[in-house]
């Protein structure tokens, strides 16, 4: 039943990503056009626009949420594909371990960066 648990959350994560990454894509790809969360004009991903979003708690919080959820969804999906190659049990264990450690490491890195930049941007704005 453990795999049922993982897969249930894999699907639930997919729905969360659909919403959050959909918003992310609209902001990043269409922000230069719509100026949605990109008040400084030019490209949505310019340094000023990035810092504007980083200073907002909503974005920092959703970045961290999206980071965790997407890492789970993506790495579990990769694990699924790898497990369908008839690996030896030891290799399956190794894959799980590597993806878990790698995923947690990237989650830690991304979360740290989001918080540091949020603090700096919020402080700069006063």
């Amino acid at each position, binding site marked *: *039943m453990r*795999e049922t648990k993982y897969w*249930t959350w894999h699907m639930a994560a997919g729905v969360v990503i659909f919403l959050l990454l959909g918003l992310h894509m609209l902001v990043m790809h269409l922000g230069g056009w719509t100026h949605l969360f990109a008040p400084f004009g030019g490209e949505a991903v310019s340094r000023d626009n990035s810092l504007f979003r980083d200073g907002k708690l909503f974005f920092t919080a959703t970045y961290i949420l999206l980071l965790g959820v997407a890492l789970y969804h993506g790495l579990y999906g990769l694990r699924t594909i790898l*497990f369908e190659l*008839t690996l030896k049990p030891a290799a399956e264990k190794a894959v799980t371990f590597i993806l878990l450690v790698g995923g947690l490491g990237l989650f830690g890195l991304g979360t740290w960066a989001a918080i540091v930049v949020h603090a700096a941007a919020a402080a700069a704005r006063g």
Partner: protein
Amino acid sequence: MADSNKTVRDVKFHVTRYNPETDAAPYVKTYTVPVREGMTVLDGLHYIKENLDGSLAWRFSCRMGICGSCGMLLNGRPTLACNTQILHIAETQLTVGPLPNFDIIRDLVPDLMSMFEKHRSLKPYVVRADEAEVNDPAGEFYQTPEQLEAYLQFTYCIKCGCCMAACPTLATDARYLGPMPLSAAQRYNQDTRDDGRPQRNQVTGSAHGAFRCHYAGECSRACPKGVDPAKAIQHLKRRLVLDYLRLARRKKACQKLHGPGQGQPPGNIPAAPPKTVTPSA
């Protein structure tokens, strides 16, 4: 009416041959078969065996899509040789191979044991807590037509293995349970007489269980009996998820032992003869 004895055209059969005692790997041998109207691929193989090459091996029994012995790969598509007419699928060329995703025993004979072992692991029978009632029934389990229809479609499976041959997951994952065993599990899970779902969930919800199905849909397309294994697996997954989230309606096995007649036999039926076998406990 068409003359069924008249040859319509010659069709070249490209048949996979493999003799485990002499061949390192399968190879393809070509035979020319004069095809009459209404001739099935199975008839064509019989023609080859009787007239061209007596060493060709394949498995068949009923010749009418009931036994599930003659599943083969015809023009790249897994199906039954007995209910496929040559003229429906071939102009002049026809490739005939053994079902993929199984070991080849010889020529067109696949080893279906891997499928049957997975099937067995899913307890494909009515499992009940009240074993005494199963061994020594006091009456009948009453089931409504609607309750029957919830699983009837999945009972038509003839275990031919065509779905297993079509499944992309099984192409790489030897341990994946596969469409046929999983739809059999769903057939019993849906049966109101059955208590075995928690036991089956342990297997169907495992790492190589139902969640390795990604709905490529080939099993349902290949099934020669319209069993629609892909549908069974999606319903199975739904129930697994609901069971995990504890959202499933609590399903108790059917306790009602008598039908509309409340267990009273009609008067004109003679008494049953005495039992000759005592079921072991």
